[in-house]
C-alpha cells in the first residue's frame, strides 16, 4: 500500500472498490493454509502454532473468524488426507568438479612468483 493517503487527483489511484471476503472465503483459505503446510510435513502442533501466530495474518484471521474448534477440526481432517508422505534422504550424484579451487590458484601464483624470482 502507498505511504501517503490516496490522492484523488491521481488518475491511477484505485478508488471505491470493496470486494470483502466472507466467512466462506475464510473457510476455504483455512483449508488451503492447512493443506499447504501439511504437505510440507508440518505436525498438528506446528500447524496449530501457525494459526495462532498473529504475524501469519491471514491464517490468524481465519482462526479469529472461525474459532478454535473449527480450525482444530480442519487441521485434523487435512492431516489425515494430506499429511502422509514418504521421506527420501538423498543427494545428487557425484559430478565432475568444474570450479577451480582457491588453493590451486594460490599454488599457481606461488610457483609463478618463485619462477620470477629465480629469473631475476
Amino acid at each position, binding site marked *: 500500500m502507498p505511504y501517503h493517503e490516496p490522492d484523488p487527483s491521481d488518475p*491511477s489511484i484505485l478508488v471505491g472498490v470493496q470486494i470483502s471476503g466472507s466467512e466462506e472465503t475464510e473457510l476455504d483459505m483455512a483449508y488451503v493454509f492447512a493443506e499447504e503446510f501439511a504437505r510440507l510435513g508440518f505436525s498438528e502442533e506446528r500447524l496449530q502454532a501457525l494459526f495462532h501466530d498473529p504475524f501469519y495474518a491471514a491464517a490468524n484471521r481465519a482462526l479469529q473468524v472461525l474459532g478454535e474448534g473449527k480450525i482444530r477440526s480442519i487441521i485434523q*481432517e487435512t492431516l489425515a488426507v494430506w499429511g502422509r508422505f514418504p521421506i527420501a534422504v538423498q543427494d545428487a550424484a557425484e559430478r565432475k568438479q568444474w570450479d577451480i579451487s582457491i588453493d590451486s590458484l594460490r599454488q599457481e601464483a606461488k610457483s609463478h612468483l618463485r619462477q620470477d624470482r629465480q629469473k631475476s
Partner: protein
Amino acid sequence: MSYPYEARFPERQFAFVFNINRCIACQSCTMACKSTWTFSKGQEHMWWANVETKPYGGYPQSWDVRTLELLRQADPDGQTWNGPVSDNPRSLYGGFSGKTIFEAAEKTLQPPGSRVLGYLPTDEEWNSPNIYEDNPVGPKGVRNQLHQTGEQLPTHNTWFFYLARICNHCTYPACLAACPRQAIYKRPEDGIVLLDQKECRGYRKCVEACPYKKVMYRGNTRVSEKCVACYPRVEGTDPESDGQPMETRCMAACIGQIRMQGLVKMNSDGTWAEDRQNPLYYLVHVAKVGLPLYPQFGTSPNGYYIPPRWVPRGYLRQMFGPGVDRALERYENPDRELLAVLQLFRRSNRIIFRYEIEEGPLVYTGVYRGKTVRIYDDTVIAFGQEGNELFRTKVEEPLYVRPGQYQNSI
C-alpha cells in the same frame, strides 16, 4: 462473434495451463523472460511475462478494469452470460450475450478505422509493475521501517491471489486485427502470434487493441514488440533443445510448478481436435478445470487458468466466466486421473504430447470436507513428440531431504 479477417486456424496451437493455486509470485518466470528477451536499452519497461497481485495490481496498471469499463460503456447492462456451462467445445464456459471488443468497436466513437475497442496505457501505467503490491507499510512519513507491533493494527477480511500472465497467442488476436500494416501474423504451424519488426511503423494500434496489454512499444527503435513464445525452443531449433520441442523460458523456470505448456491439435473449424491423452486437452476439455482469462473479450485466448479456490466466486466469474464453479468443484475433489495429471507439471522442460497412467494401490480413503476421498498411488508417464518417454512420476511424491553432511554444499 465478429472478426475483421476471415478465420484461419493453425495445424497446432501453442497453449498453456497455469494453476493459480500454486503461484507464489516469486517472479522467476518474469526474470527468465526478461533476461532472455527484454534486457536491452529501450526495453526497460517491458515485461512480456509478469505476475501481478489481484485484485489490486496490474501491469500496466488497471489494464483489465479499464477494458471492462470500456465494454460496459459500449454496452451498458448487456455484458452478461446467458447460457449454462456445457460440454459443447464452442460454449464450454457458457454463452456470452454481451459485446466483444470487436463488436463493441462498431458502436463506440472511436475513429471509423478502428477495428477493436481498446485504449493506450500511459507511460506511468507501464513504468512500475507491482508498485504498492504486497508492500508492508511502516509509520507514516518514515521510509524503510516497519511497524514493530504490526499484529495490533486493524484487521480486514482480505483475500488476494497472484496472476501470472504472458501473451495468450489468441485464436482471434486483437493486435493482428488492429494493425494497419498487417505486420502481425499467426504462424500456421503452431499458432504463435509474431510481429514483423521490418513492417511495423510504430503506430501502436496493436498496443491499444490488445485487451491483455501484452504488446509493448519500444521508444528507441520506434516499433512495437511482443512475446514470441520462445519459438526456437517450441520449434526444437534452440541449441539446448536437441531437436525436441521445449517449453518456453517462463514455463521452464517456474519453481512453483504452476505451469504446463504444449502444442494442441486443431480442427479445421478452430476448435481443439480430440486428443484425449494430451494433458492440456485433458485439463481444458475433459476435466474442464482450465479456464480462459476474460473470455468475454472475444479473442479466444489460448492461455488457461485453474482458478484459485479461496477467492470469492463473483470475482472469479467475472475473470474466468461461468465455468468457474464447475472447475473448482472438480479441482477441490479431484478424481483419480486429475490427481495424476496434476503431477505432470514441471517435471521436465520438454513439451508433453501424451501421457499414460499406470494404476497403483489405493493408499488412502476417508472423508474430506464432506466428500469421500480416495487416493491411489498411480504412476503417470509423459511422452514427447516422437513417442519417447520423457519421465514418470507418482501421485505420492516423496519429500526429498538433503542429508546433514551436504546441507551447505551448494
